[in-house]
Protein backbone atom coordinates (compact mmCIF):
# COMPACT_ATOMS: atom_id res chain seq x y z
CA UNK A 1 0.00 0.00 0.00
CA UNK A 2 2.77 2.39 0.95
CA UNK A 3 4.60 1.44 -2.17
CA UNK A 4 1.61 2.15 -4.34
CA UNK A 5 1.30 5.59 -2.82
CA UNK A 6 4.90 6.43 -3.43
CA UNK A 7 4.80 5.62 -7.10
CA UNK A 8 2.26 8.22 -8.19
CA UNK A 9 3.93 11.01 -6.29
CA UNK A 10 5.97 12.52 -9.11
CA UNK A 11 3.92 15.42 -10.34
CA UNK A 12 2.64 15.91 -13.85
CA UNK A 13 4.60 19.13 -14.20
CA UNK A 14 7.83 17.36 -13.44
CA UNK A 15 7.17 14.41 -15.69
CA UNK A 16 6.55 16.85 -18.54
CA UNK A 17 9.75 18.81 -18.26
CA UNK A 18 12.35 16.47 -16.80
CA UNK A 19 14.97 15.00 -19.07
CA UNK A 20 18.17 13.09 -18.50
CA UNK A 21 20.78 15.55 -17.17
CA UNK A 22 23.55 14.02 -19.25
CA UNK A 23 21.97 13.19 -22.58
CA UNK A 24 18.96 15.54 -22.41
CA UNK A 25 16.86 12.65 -23.67
CA UNK A 26 13.45 11.77 -22.22
CA UNK A 27 13.18 9.80 -19.00
CA UNK A 28 10.89 6.89 -18.24
CA UNK A 29 9.32 6.25 -14.85
CA UNK A 30 10.02 2.76 -13.56
CA UNK A 31 7.38 2.02 -10.95
CA UNK A 32 8.97 -1.23 -9.83
CA UNK A 33 12.25 0.29 -8.71
CA UNK A 34 10.74 3.73 -8.05
CA UNK A 35 13.23 5.48 -10.28
CA UNK A 36 13.57 7.47 -13.46
CA UNK A 37 15.39 5.69 -16.24
CA UNK A 38 17.30 7.28 -19.04
CA UNK A 39 17.24 4.68 -21.82
CA UNK A 40 19.65 6.68 -23.95
CA UNK A 41 22.57 6.07 -21.61
CA UNK A 42 21.19 3.24 -19.46
CA UNK A 43 21.23 5.06 -16.15
CA UNK A 44 18.58 5.09 -13.46
CA UNK A 45 17.98 8.01 -11.11
CA UNK A 46 16.23 7.39 -7.79
CA UNK A 47 13.02 9.05 -6.64
CA UNK A 48 13.31 9.56 -2.90
CA UNK A 49 10.12 10.48 -1.09
CA UNK A 50 8.64 11.89 -4.27
CA UNK A 51 11.69 13.98 -5.06
CA UNK A 52 13.56 12.85 -8.16
CA UNK A 53 17.33 13.03 -7.70
CA UNK A 54 18.89 13.91 -11.02
CA UNK A 55 22.43 14.78 -10.03
CA UNK A 56 24.69 12.67 -12.26
CA UNK A 57 26.44 11.29 -9.18
CA UNK A 58 23.15 9.84 -7.87
CA UNK A 59 22.56 7.88 -11.06
CA UNK A 60 23.23 4.16 -11.24
CA UNK A 61 24.29 2.39 -14.39
CA UNK A 62 21.81 -0.35 -15.20
CA UNK A 63 23.84 -3.49 -15.70
CA UNK A 64 21.17 -6.13 -16.22
CA UNK A 65 19.98 -4.61 -19.47
CA UNK A 66 23.40 -4.39 -21.05
CA UNK A 67 24.42 -7.70 -22.43
CA UNK A 68 28.10 -8.41 -22.92
CA UNK A 69 27.60 -10.03 -26.29
CA UNK A 70 26.39 -6.81 -27.80
CA UNK A 71 23.27 -5.97 -29.68
CA UNK A 72 22.40 -9.31 -31.20
CA UNK A 73 22.08 -11.08 -27.85
CA UNK A 74 20.10 -8.21 -26.50
CA UNK A 75 17.52 -8.28 -29.26
CA UNK A 76 17.26 -12.04 -29.08
CA UNK A 77 16.35 -11.89 -25.44
CA UNK A 78 13.77 -9.27 -26.10
CA UNK A 79 12.16 -11.52 -28.70
CA UNK A 80 11.93 -14.22 -26.10
CA UNK A 81 10.18 -12.00 -23.67
CA UNK A 82 7.70 -10.72 -26.17
CA UNK A 83 7.02 -14.20 -27.37
CA UNK A 84 7.10 -12.97 -30.95
CA UNK A 85 10.48 -14.33 -31.98
CA UNK A 86 11.45 -17.93 -32.51
CA UNK A 87 13.49 -19.82 -29.97
Amino acid at each position, binding site marked *: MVRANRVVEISKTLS*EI*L*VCPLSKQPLRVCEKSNSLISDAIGVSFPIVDG*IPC*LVPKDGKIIEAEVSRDGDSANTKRRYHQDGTGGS
Partner: protein
Amino acid sequence: MNRLNGTLLRTSLRRRSFSTADNVDGNLQGSKVQIFDRHLKRKQRDRAAWLINRKDSLVNTVADNLLDRLEDVKKTFPTTLCLGGSLEAIRRSVRGRGAIQKLIMMDSSYDMVKLCKDAEKDLASDNIETSFMVGDEEYLPIQASSVDLVISCLGLHWTNDLPGAMIQSRLALKPDGLFLAAIFGGETLKELRIACTIAHMEREGGVSPRISPLAQVRDAGNLLTRAGFTLPGVDVDEYQVRYNSALELIEHLRAMGETNALVNRIKFLKKDTALATAAVYESMFAAEDGTIPATFQVIYMTGWREHESQQKAKRRGSATVSFQDIQKEFGAGETT
Protein backbone atom coordinates in the same frame (compact mmCIF):
# COMPACT_ATOMS: atom_id res chain seq x y z
CA MET B 1 45.82 35.06 -4.43
CA ASN B 2 42.34 35.59 -5.68
CA ARG B 3 43.48 37.62 -8.62
CA LEU B 4 45.97 34.94 -9.53
CA ASN B 5 43.31 32.28 -9.38
CA GLY B 6 41.02 34.37 -11.51
CA THR B 7 43.49 34.86 -14.32
CA LEU B 8 44.55 31.26 -14.15
CA LEU B 9 40.97 30.20 -14.52
CA ARG B 10 40.38 32.51 -17.39
CA THR B 11 43.41 31.37 -19.35
CA SER B 12 42.56 27.74 -18.84
CA LEU B 13 39.00 28.36 -19.93
CA ARG B 14 40.25 30.10 -23.02
CA ARG B 15 42.60 27.26 -23.79
CA ARG B 16 39.77 24.80 -23.46
CA SER B 17 37.53 26.61 -25.88
CA PHE B 18 40.18 26.63 -28.59
CA SER B 19 41.30 23.04 -28.32
CA THR B 20 39.25 20.47 -30.14
CA ALA B 21 41.58 17.53 -30.59
CA ASP B 22 42.34 16.57 -27.00
CA ASN B 23 38.90 17.41 -25.73
CA VAL B 24 36.76 14.78 -27.37
CA ASP B 25 33.56 15.38 -25.48
CA GLY B 26 33.97 19.11 -25.93
CA ASN B 27 30.31 19.89 -25.57
CA LEU B 28 29.06 22.47 -23.14
CA GLN B 29 29.29 20.07 -20.23
CA GLY B 30 32.77 18.84 -20.97
CA SER B 31 34.46 21.18 -18.56
CA LYS B 32 37.79 19.83 -17.41
CA VAL B 33 38.46 22.75 -15.10
CA GLN B 34 37.53 21.87 -11.57
CA ILE B 35 37.75 24.85 -9.27
CA PHE B 36 35.04 23.91 -6.83
CA ASP B 37 34.38 20.60 -5.18
CA ARG B 38 30.72 20.23 -6.13
CA HIS B 39 30.28 17.17 -3.99
CA LEU B 40 31.55 18.98 -0.93
CA LYS B 41 29.27 21.89 -1.76
CA ARG B 42 26.33 19.49 -1.67
CA LYS B 43 27.37 18.30 1.74
CA GLN B 44 27.75 21.88 2.95
CA ARG B 45 24.31 22.71 1.66
CA ASP B 46 22.90 19.64 3.40
CA ARG B 47 24.33 21.05 6.60
CA ALA B 48 23.07 24.54 5.78
CA ALA B 49 19.55 23.11 5.50
CA TRP B 50 19.75 22.27 9.19
CA LEU B 51 21.37 25.53 10.21
CA ILE B 52 19.18 27.78 8.08
CA ASN B 53 18.03 31.02 9.60
CA ARG B 54 14.74 32.15 8.09
CA LYS B 55 15.28 35.68 9.39
CA ASP B 56 18.62 36.07 7.62
CA SER B 57 18.28 39.66 6.47
CA LEU B 58 21.01 39.43 3.83
CA VAL B 59 19.47 36.45 2.07
CA ASN B 60 15.94 37.79 2.36
CA THR B 61 16.92 41.19 1.02
CA VAL B 62 18.67 39.70 -1.98
CA ALA B 63 15.76 37.36 -2.74
CA ASP B 64 13.28 40.22 -2.44
CA ASN B 65 15.40 42.50 -4.58
CA LEU B 66 15.74 39.85 -7.26
CA LEU B 67 12.02 39.12 -7.40
CA ASP B 68 11.29 42.83 -7.42
CA ARG B 69 12.52 42.83 -11.01
CA LEU B 70 9.49 40.78 -12.01
CA GLU B 71 7.28 43.74 -11.22
CA ASP B 72 9.09 45.81 -13.82
CA VAL B 73 8.02 43.57 -16.68
CA LYS B 74 4.54 43.22 -18.10
CA LYS B 75 5.08 39.61 -19.10
CA THR B 76 3.79 36.84 -16.86
CA PHE B 77 5.74 33.71 -16.05
CA PRO B 78 3.37 30.77 -15.60
CA THR B 79 6.12 28.14 -15.38
CA THR B 80 9.15 29.04 -13.34
CA LEU B 81 12.28 27.12 -12.50
CA CYS B 82 14.11 28.10 -9.34
CA LEU B 83 17.72 26.95 -9.15
CA GLY B 84 19.74 26.34 -6.02
CA GLY B 85 21.04 28.91 -3.62
CA SER B 86 18.60 30.76 -1.42
CA LEU B 87 15.78 28.54 -2.55
CA GLU B 88 13.67 28.79 0.53
CA ALA B 89 13.90 32.60 0.72
CA ILE B 90 12.76 32.85 -2.90
CA ARG B 91 9.75 30.67 -2.21
CA ARG B 92 8.72 32.86 0.70
CA SER B 93 9.26 36.11 -1.18
CA VAL B 94 7.38 35.32 -4.38
CA ARG B 95 4.03 36.59 -3.05
CA GLY B 96 2.22 36.58 -6.35
CA ARG B 97 4.89 38.41 -8.30
CA GLY B 98 5.26 37.54 -11.97
CA ALA B 99 1.94 35.64 -11.87
CA ILE B 100 3.80 32.37 -11.33
CA GLN B 101 1.51 29.36 -11.49
CA LYS B 102 3.95 26.49 -11.46
CA LEU B 103 7.18 26.68 -9.54
CA ILE B 104 9.81 23.99 -9.91
CA MET B 105 12.39 24.11 -7.16
CA MET B 106 15.77 22.54 -7.71
CA ASP B 107 18.84 22.26 -5.55
CA SER B 108 21.86 20.01 -5.50
CA SER B 109 21.24 19.17 -1.85
CA TYR B 110 18.48 16.73 -1.02
CA ASP B 111 18.08 18.04 2.53
CA MET B 112 17.61 21.57 1.23
CA VAL B 113 14.88 20.46 -1.19
CA LYS B 114 13.24 18.40 1.53
CA LEU B 115 13.28 21.42 3.83
CA CYS B 116 11.48 23.48 1.20
CA LYS B 117 8.98 20.71 0.63
CA ASP B 118 8.24 20.44 4.33
CA ALA B 119 7.98 24.21 4.68
CA GLU B 120 5.40 24.30 1.92
CA LYS B 121 2.46 23.56 4.21
CA ASP B 122 3.39 26.44 6.53
CA LEU B 123 3.07 28.98 3.74
CA ALA B 124 -0.12 30.83 3.11
CA SER B 125 -1.69 29.30 0.06
CA ASP B 126 -0.95 31.47 -2.95
CA ASN B 127 -2.15 29.02 -5.59
CA ILE B 128 1.30 28.18 -6.81
CA GLU B 129 1.79 24.58 -7.73
CA THR B 130 5.23 23.62 -6.54
CA SER B 131 7.32 20.63 -7.54
CA PHE B 132 10.64 19.59 -6.15
CA MET B 133 13.69 17.92 -7.56
CA VAL B 134 17.36 17.43 -6.84
CA GLY B 135 19.60 18.47 -9.69
CA ASP B 136 22.91 20.03 -10.57
CA GLU B 137 23.04 23.40 -12.31
CA GLU B 138 25.92 22.16 -14.40
CA TYR B 139 23.79 19.27 -15.66
CA LEU B 140 20.37 20.81 -15.89
CA PRO B 141 17.78 18.04 -16.34
CA ILE B 142 15.18 20.29 -17.94
CA GLN B 143 13.68 19.86 -21.37
CA ALA B 144 14.59 22.56 -23.87
CA SER B 145 12.08 25.42 -24.29
CA SER B 146 9.90 24.42 -21.37
CA VAL B 147 9.97 27.19 -18.76
CA ASP B 148 9.17 30.91 -18.84
CA LEU B 149 11.53 32.05 -16.13
CA VAL B 150 14.71 30.77 -14.53
CA ILE B 151 15.61 32.25 -11.16
CA SER B 152 18.90 31.59 -9.47
CA CYS B 153 19.52 33.33 -6.19
CA LEU B 154 23.06 33.16 -4.82
CA GLY B 155 23.89 29.75 -6.22
CA LEU B 156 25.66 30.05 -9.53
CA HIS B 157 28.93 31.41 -8.14
CA TRP B 158 29.75 27.85 -7.04
CA THR B 159 29.57 26.34 -10.51
CA ASN B 160 32.78 25.27 -12.19
CA ASP B 161 31.40 26.09 -15.58
CA LEU B 162 29.34 29.23 -15.16
CA PRO B 163 28.95 29.97 -18.89
CA GLY B 164 27.87 26.35 -19.43
CA ALA B 165 25.29 26.53 -16.66
CA MET B 166 23.94 29.76 -18.12
CA ILE B 167 23.77 28.30 -21.62
CA GLN B 168 21.78 25.36 -20.27
CA SER B 169 19.44 27.76 -18.50
CA ARG B 170 18.92 29.62 -21.75
CA LEU B 171 18.11 26.41 -23.58
CA ALA B 172 15.59 25.47 -20.91
CA LEU B 173 13.79 28.76 -21.42
CA LYS B 174 11.01 29.26 -23.91
CA PRO B 175 11.62 31.99 -26.49
CA ASP B 176 11.23 35.39 -24.81
CA GLY B 177 11.80 33.72 -21.43
CA LEU B 178 13.66 35.54 -18.69
CA PHE B 179 16.82 34.53 -16.87
CA LEU B 180 17.22 36.19 -13.51
CA ALA B 181 20.24 35.53 -11.33
CA ALA B 182 22.04 36.93 -8.33
CA ILE B 183 25.60 35.89 -7.60
CA PHE B 184 28.23 37.08 -5.16
CA GLY B 185 30.75 39.38 -6.81
CA GLY B 186 34.47 39.89 -6.39
CA GLU B 187 34.24 42.47 -3.61
CA THR B 188 32.49 39.98 -1.36
CA LEU B 189 34.27 39.29 1.92
CA LYS B 190 37.22 41.46 0.95
CA GLU B 191 37.95 42.08 4.63
CA LEU B 192 38.12 38.37 5.36
CA ARG B 193 40.30 37.84 2.32
CA ILE B 194 42.79 40.40 3.59
CA ALA B 195 42.69 39.10 7.16
CA CYS B 196 43.18 35.52 6.01
CA THR B 197 46.14 36.41 3.84
CA ILE B 198 47.88 38.40 6.54
CA ALA B 199 47.34 35.80 9.24
CA HIS B 200 48.51 32.99 7.00
CA MET B 201 51.61 34.87 5.95
CA GLU B 202 52.40 35.59 9.54
CA ARG B 203 51.75 32.14 11.02
CA GLU B 204 52.48 29.76 8.18
CA GLY B 205 54.72 31.77 5.90
CA GLY B 206 52.48 31.38 2.86
CA VAL B 207 48.92 31.59 1.69
CA SER B 208 46.43 29.07 0.42
CA PRO B 209 43.12 29.90 -1.18
CA ARG B 210 40.51 30.23 1.53
CA ILE B 211 37.98 32.31 -0.34
CA SER B 212 36.83 31.41 -3.78
CA PRO B 213 37.54 33.45 -6.89
CA LEU B 214 34.36 35.30 -7.76
CA ALA B 215 33.16 36.94 -10.92
CA GLN B 216 33.80 40.66 -11.27
CA VAL B 217 31.08 43.05 -12.32
CA ARG B 218 32.68 43.59 -15.72
CA ASP B 219 32.61 39.82 -16.32
CA ALA B 220 28.89 39.54 -15.69
CA GLY B 221 27.87 41.35 -18.86
CA ASN B 222 30.29 39.25 -20.90
CA LEU B 223 28.90 36.10 -19.31
CA LEU B 224 25.35 36.99 -20.31
CA THR B 225 26.38 37.83 -23.87
CA ARG B 226 28.51 34.73 -24.15
CA ALA B 227 25.62 32.57 -22.97
CA GLY B 228 23.57 34.08 -25.78
CA PHE B 229 21.06 36.11 -23.79
CA THR B 230 19.56 39.17 -25.44
CA LEU B 231 18.94 42.53 -23.75
CA PRO B 232 21.45 41.75 -21.00
CA GLY B 233 21.29 43.81 -17.85
CA VAL B 234 23.68 43.85 -14.91
CA ASP B 235 23.58 45.81 -11.72
CA VAL B 236 25.36 45.66 -8.44
CA ASP B 237 24.48 46.11 -4.83
CA GLU B 238 26.78 46.15 -1.85
CA TYR B 239 25.60 45.10 1.56
CA GLN B 240 27.46 45.58 4.79
CA VAL B 241 26.60 43.11 7.48
CA ARG B 242 27.77 43.79 11.03
CA TYR B 243 28.76 40.99 13.34
CA ASN B 244 29.74 40.89 16.97
CA SER B 245 32.83 38.87 16.24
CA ALA B 246 34.66 37.27 13.34
CA LEU B 247 33.48 33.86 14.49
CA GLU B 248 29.89 34.97 14.07
CA LEU B 249 30.67 35.79 10.47
CA ILE B 250 31.91 32.24 9.93
CA GLU B 251 28.75 30.87 11.56
CA HIS B 252 26.68 32.96 9.17
CA LEU B 253 28.60 31.70 6.16
CA ARG B 254 28.11 28.16 7.36
CA ALA B 255 24.37 28.65 7.76
CA MET B 256 24.21 29.96 4.20
CA GLY B 257 26.27 27.03 2.92
CA GLU B 258 28.87 29.46 1.64
CA THR B 259 31.99 27.99 3.20
CA ASN B 260 35.13 27.11 1.29
CA ALA B 261 34.66 24.42 -1.34
CA LEU B 262 37.73 24.93 -3.48
CA VAL B 263 39.28 21.79 -4.88
CA ASN B 264 42.76 23.06 -4.03
CA ARG B 265 41.94 24.03 -0.50
CA ILE B 266 44.05 22.91 2.40
CA LYS B 267 41.72 20.66 4.30
CA PHE B 268 42.57 21.79 7.80
CA LEU B 269 42.94 25.12 9.46
CA LYS B 270 45.32 25.45 12.39
CA LYS B 271 43.69 26.82 15.46
CA ASP B 272 46.20 29.59 16.04
CA THR B 273 45.97 30.66 12.39
CA ALA B 274 42.21 30.86 12.72
CA LEU B 275 42.49 32.90 15.88
CA ALA B 276 45.12 35.12 14.27
CA THR B 277 42.75 35.71 11.36
CA ALA B 278 40.02 36.76 13.76
CA ALA B 279 42.44 39.06 15.58
CA VAL B 280 43.70 40.65 12.36
CA TYR B 281 40.14 41.10 11.18
CA GLU B 282 39.14 42.81 14.38
CA SER B 283 42.17 45.09 14.56
CA MET B 284 41.94 46.16 10.93
CA PHE B 285 38.25 46.49 10.29
CA ALA B 286 36.33 46.71 13.57
CA ALA B 287 34.04 49.70 13.87
CA GLU B 288 34.10 52.06 16.84
CA ASP B 289 31.30 50.21 18.56
CA GLY B 290 33.25 46.96 18.36
CA THR B 291 31.20 45.36 15.64
CA ILE B 292 32.82 43.80 12.62
CA PRO B 293 31.64 44.70 9.14
CA ALA B 294 31.68 42.31 6.23
CA THR B 295 30.99 43.35 2.67
CA PHE B 296 28.77 41.31 0.42
CA GLN B 297 28.66 42.39 -3.19
CA VAL B 298 25.77 40.96 -5.13
CA ILE B 299 25.65 41.05 -8.92
CA TYR B 300 22.17 40.89 -10.38
CA MET B 301 21.96 39.63 -13.92
CA THR B 302 19.00 39.64 -16.27
CA GLY B 303 18.86 38.26 -19.77
CA TRP B 304 16.23 37.11 -22.20
CA ARG B 305 16.04 34.25 -24.59
CA GLU B 306 15.91 35.58 -28.13
CA HIS B 307 12.53 36.30 -29.67
CA GLU B 308 11.55 38.29 -32.75
CA SER B 309 9.38 40.65 -30.73
CA GLN B 310 12.43 42.01 -28.92
CA GLN B 311 14.05 45.21 -30.07
CA LYS B 312 17.43 44.87 -31.69
CA ALA B 313 19.83 46.77 -33.88
CA LYS B 314 19.27 46.53 -37.63
CA ARG B 315 21.67 44.62 -39.79
CA ARG B 316 24.71 46.58 -40.90
CA GLY B 317 24.24 48.16 -44.28
CA SER B 318 20.48 47.78 -44.23
CA ALA B 319 19.84 51.51 -44.01
CA THR B 320 17.92 53.03 -46.92
CA VAL B 321 18.24 56.67 -45.93
CA SER B 322 21.49 58.60 -45.96
CA PHE B 323 22.55 60.40 -42.83
CA GLN B 324 23.10 63.49 -44.92
CA ASP B 325 19.42 63.48 -45.84
CA ILE B 326 18.48 63.14 -42.19
CA GLN B 327 20.67 66.06 -41.38
CA LYS B 328 19.05 68.11 -44.13
CA GLU B 329 15.63 67.22 -42.80
CA PHE B 330 16.15 67.78 -39.08
CA GLY B 331 19.37 69.69 -38.55
CA ALA B 332 19.03 72.23 -41.34
CA GLY B 333 18.80 75.20 -39.02
CA GLU B 334 22.01 74.46 -37.16
CA THR B 335 24.37 73.43 -39.92
CA THR B 336 23.61 76.01 -42.56
